[in-house]
C-alpha cells in the first residue's frame, strides 16, 4: 500500500523552524521587539506562546541588556529577537558589552528579503559586517533549510568555551519559505574548527602547583571565569586548603563570601588599597578566569614584576596578552581548580594575610568611616549601599550601571551569595542596569534583584520601566542621584582643574516618571529617613523606585589614576 498524504512529515516554514529550534534547545524566554523583517517569525511565535515566553521591551538595546542579565544569572544564552536595520543597530551596544564581558547571547535578527540584499532596501543594513568585530560568531541565513543546524551551532558557540554573543541574520524569505526537508534539531556537541579546552593539561597543572607550593606570598585574583564555570565551591576549597588570600575582580565579585577570612577585596582603579598595593609584593600571582584588564593592572611596566604568574584561563589568546604567564593553565576555572586541589599543599599564610589588614585599617580610617559614619547632612552613596547591604544581609542580586555608584556598590555591598553581581565591566555601558536587572529578575524571580543606577545612566534606558511595569515583576530600583555625571565630574575635578565640562544634569522628577509608568516610588533626601526608605523599597511586593538624593560632589576613593602603578593609590 502506498503512503498516504498524511504520513508525510509536515514541512515547517523557516519561521516555524526558528521557534521549534528554540523549544528543542530548551529556551523558555525571548526578549524582543517586532518589526517588518522579522514579522514572519513573530507570526510563528503567536502559535508558540505556551512554550516560549516573549517579553516585549521598549527599545532593542533593552532587549539585549535584559538578555545579558538573564544569561549572567543562569549561565546559559539569553535570547533576543529584533528586526532589521535600526532594530539590529540598536542591539549593537549590548552585543559589544556581552563580547567584552563574556556573556552568552543568541541574537536573532530579521533581514530584508533575499532578493533585496545589497540594494539599500527599506530597513536594510549590513548587520553581519557591523556586528563582526563584536560577536563571537555570526551568520546570515538565506535558506530556510539551514535554520535548525545554524540555530544549534549558535547556541553551542555562544555557551561553550569563553561564552559570547552570536548573531544570526535571517532574511525575510528564509523565514517565510517552507523548508524542503523535514525539520530535525540536533544539538551540536563539537565543531571541527572550534575546540575550547575545558580540562587543563596535566603538565600545566603540575607546573602551576609547583609554583604555588613554593610560594611564600601567593595572591589570588579571581575573575568572571569563576562565576561562569560555576567554580565558587572549588575556589573555596582551594583557598581553605592553601590559605591564600583572594581578591575578586569587578566581574568576579561574589565568587567568594565577602566575610571569608581570606577575602581581601578587589583590585583595580577604585579597588581596595591593600588589594592593589600588595600585587607588587606577592611572589606568586594566581589569576583565575580573568584577563588583566587595564583597569586592574594600571601601568603594565610596573605591574607585579616581582611575581611569578600562574594564569588559569579558558581563552588562550588572553594568556601573555597583557601579563606574561610563567605557568599558563588553559582550561576552565572549575576544571583547573579541581585538578590543582590535590596537588597543592595545605598551608597557612597568616603573616602575609595580615599584611592586607594593615592597609585595610588605613583605608577604613581614611575612606570607609568618612563615607559611612560622617556628620554631614547629605547622604553619601557609600552609606546608602552599606545600609542596603546590611538590610539584605548581602544576599541580593545587585545589578549596577556604570560610574561612581558602580564603584561604590562594589566597595560597600558585602556579597554573601554566589553569582550575585551583574555589572557592565569591560564596555562600561551606561544604561545597562535597568534592563539587565529586569532580565536577572526574569531568570531568578525568587531572588531579590536590586538595580543601583546613577541619574545619568538611568535616563539612557528608563523606557524599560514600561517593560518592568508590564511584567509586574518586583524589580527594586535605586537611583543614586547627585545631579552629575559623577565619575566624569570626579576626573574633571582631579585631573582637569575642576573645569566641569558638560556634566551637570537638569533632572526630571524621577518619581513622577515612575508613577507615569505605573511604578510606585519615592524620593529620600534626609539622612534620617534613609533606613526607612530602604525598608519601603525592600518590602514592596511590586516594582519600586527609590531615588536617593546624594551629596553632589562626592568622590570615589581609593583611586589608582589611569595608567598609574598599583602602588600609587590615592586615598583622598
Amino acid at each position, binding site marked *: 500500500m502506498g503512503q498516504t498524504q498524511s504520513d508525510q512529515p509536515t514541512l515547517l516554514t523557516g519561521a516555524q523552524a526558528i521557534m521549534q529550534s528554540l523549544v528543542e534547545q530548551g529556551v523558555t524566554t525571548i526578549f524582543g521587539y517586532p518589526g517588518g523583517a522579522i514579522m514572519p517569525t513573530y507570526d510563528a511565535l503567536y502559535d508558540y506562546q505556551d512554550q516560549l515566553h516573549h517579553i516585549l521591551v521598549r527599545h532593542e538595546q533593552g532587549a539585549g541588556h535584559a538578555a545579558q542579565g538573564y544569561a549572567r544569572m543562569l549561565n546559559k544564552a539569553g535570547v533576543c529577537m529584533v528586526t532589521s536595520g535600526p532594530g539590529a543597530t540598536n542591539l549593537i551596544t549590548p552585543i559589544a558589552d556581552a563580547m567584552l564581558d563574556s556573556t552568552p547571547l543568541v541574537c536573532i535578527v530579521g533581514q530584508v528579503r533575499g532578493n533585496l540584499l545589497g540594494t539599500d532596501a527599506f530597513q536594510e543594513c549590513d548587520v*553581519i559586517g557591523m556586528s563582526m568585530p563584536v560577536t*563571537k560568531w555570526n551568520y546570515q541565513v538565506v535558506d530556510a533549510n539551514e535554520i535548525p543546524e545554524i540555530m544549534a551551532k549558535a547556541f553551542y558557540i555562544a555557551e561553550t568555551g569563553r561564552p559570547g554573543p552570536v548573531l544570526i541574520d535571517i532574511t525575510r524569505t528564509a523565514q517565510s519559505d517552507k523548508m524542503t526537508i523535514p525539520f530535525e534539531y540536533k544539538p551540536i556537541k563539537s565543531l571541527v574548527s572550534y575546540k575550547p579546552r575545558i580540562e587543563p593539561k596535566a603538565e600545566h597543572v603540575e607546573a602551576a602547583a609547583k609554583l604555588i607550593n613554593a610560594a611564600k606570598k601567593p595572591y589570588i585574583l579571581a575573575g568572571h571565569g569563576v562565576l561562569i564555570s560555576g567554580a565558587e565551591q572549588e575556589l573555596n576549597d582551594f583557598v581553605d586548603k592553601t590559605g591564600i588570600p583572594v581578591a575578586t575582580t569587578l566581574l568576579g565579585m561574589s565568587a567568594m563570601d565577602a566575610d571569608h577570612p581570606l577575602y581581601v577585596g578587589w583590585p583595580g582603579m577604585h579597588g581596595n588599597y591593600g588589594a592593589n598595593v600588595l600585587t607588587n609584593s606577592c611572589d606568586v600571582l594566581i589569576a583565575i578566569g580573568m584577563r588583566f584588564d587595564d583597569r586592574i593592572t594600571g601601568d603594565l611596566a610596573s605591574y607585579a614584576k616581582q611575581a611569578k604568574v600562574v594564569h588559569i584561563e579558558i581563552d588562550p*589568546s588572553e594568556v601573555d596578552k597583557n601579563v606574561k604567564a610563567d605557568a599558563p593553565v588553559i582550561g576552565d576555572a572549575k576544571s583547573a581548580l579541581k585538578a590543582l586541589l590535590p596537588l597543592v599543599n595545605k598551608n597557612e599564610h597568616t603573616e602575609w594575610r595580615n599584611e592586607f589588614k594593615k592597609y585595610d585599617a588605613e583605608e577604613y580610617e581614611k575612606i570607609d568611616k568618612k563615607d559611612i559614619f560622617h556628620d554631614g547632612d547629605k547622604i553619601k552613596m557609600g552609606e546608602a549601599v552599606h545600609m542596603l547591604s546590611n538590610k539584605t544581609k548581602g544576599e541580593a542580586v545587585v545589578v549596577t550601571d556604570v560610574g561612581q555608584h558602580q564603584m561604590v556598590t562594589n566597595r560597600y555591598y558585602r556579597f554573601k551569595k554566589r553569582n550575585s553581581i551583574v555589572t557592565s565591566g569591560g564596555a562600561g555601558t551606561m544604561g545597562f542596569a535597568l534592563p539587565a536587572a529586569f532580565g536577572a529578575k526574569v531568570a531568578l524571580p525568587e531572588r531579590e534583584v536590586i538595580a543601583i543606577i546613577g541619574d545619568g545612566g538611568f535616563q539612557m534606558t528608563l523606557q524599560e520601566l514600561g517593560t518592568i511595569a508590564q511584567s509586574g515583576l518586583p524589580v527594586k530600583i535605586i537611583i543614586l542621584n547627585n545631579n552629575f555625571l559623577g565619575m566624569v565630574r570626579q576626573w574633571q575635578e582631579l585631573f582637569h582643574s575642576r573645569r566641569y565640562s558638560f556634566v551637570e544634569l537638569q533632572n526630571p522628577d524621577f518619581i513622577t516618571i515612575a508613577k507615569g509608568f505605573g511604578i510606585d516610588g519615592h524620593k529620600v533626601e534626609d539622612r534620617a529617613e534613609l533606613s526607612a526608605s530602604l525598608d519601603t523599597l525592600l518590602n514592596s511586593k511590586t516594582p519600586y523606585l527609590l531615588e536617593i538624593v546624594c551629596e553632589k560632589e562626592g568622590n570615589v576613593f581609593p583611586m589608582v589614576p589611569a595608567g598609574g602603578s598599583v602602588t600609587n593609590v590615592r586615598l583622598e
Partner: protein
Amino acid sequence: MLTTYTISVFTTNTVGLLNRITIIFTRRRLNIECLTVSETERKGVSRFTIVIRNENREFVEKLVRQIRKITDVLAVFGYLDDEIVFNEIALFKIATPLHGESIDVKTINLDWNAKVVHWGLEYVVVEKNGTEDEIHEFYTYLKKWEILEYIKSGRVAVGKTEKGLVAYLPEEGNWEIV
C-alpha cells in the same frame, strides 16, 4: 628592526571570513603588505597567506592567537622567511612602439628567468616569478622601456617541513583530498 612575517591561516570555507580576519589587523593598526586567498588540496579548506612587517615578535604571536580564536579558523602559523618556500608573480605590460627600442627577449629569458607571455601590437606582457626582491630588481631593469602597467600578486608560501597540511588539522575532520 622590521621583520617580515608570513601568516598562514587555514579555515573552513565560510562567507565573510576574510573580513573577520582583517578586522584583527585593522584594530591593531597593522598594515597588511599582501594577502592571498586560495583553496587547498583538502575539500572545504581555504588558505589565507598574509604578509606583515613588524618589529615585535611577541606582538605577532599575540596576533596569531587572536586569529586562531576565530570560530571558523582551523589552524594558524606565523613564519619567518627562512622557514618557508615562497614566491610571488608579477606581470609587466611594456610599450613596444613601432620605431622604439625593441625588448631583449633573450636577456629576459636567460638572465632574468622571466618570459613574454603575450605579444600585442605595440606592447608585450612579461611574466616574472620570484621573491619580492627579485621582482623589484627586474622592475628596475625594465624601466628603460615604458612600463604601461605593473601588477604583482601576494605571496604564496609553504612551510619547510615534511609534514602536510592535514597533519595540522583537527583529527576528526573528514579532510578529503580534492
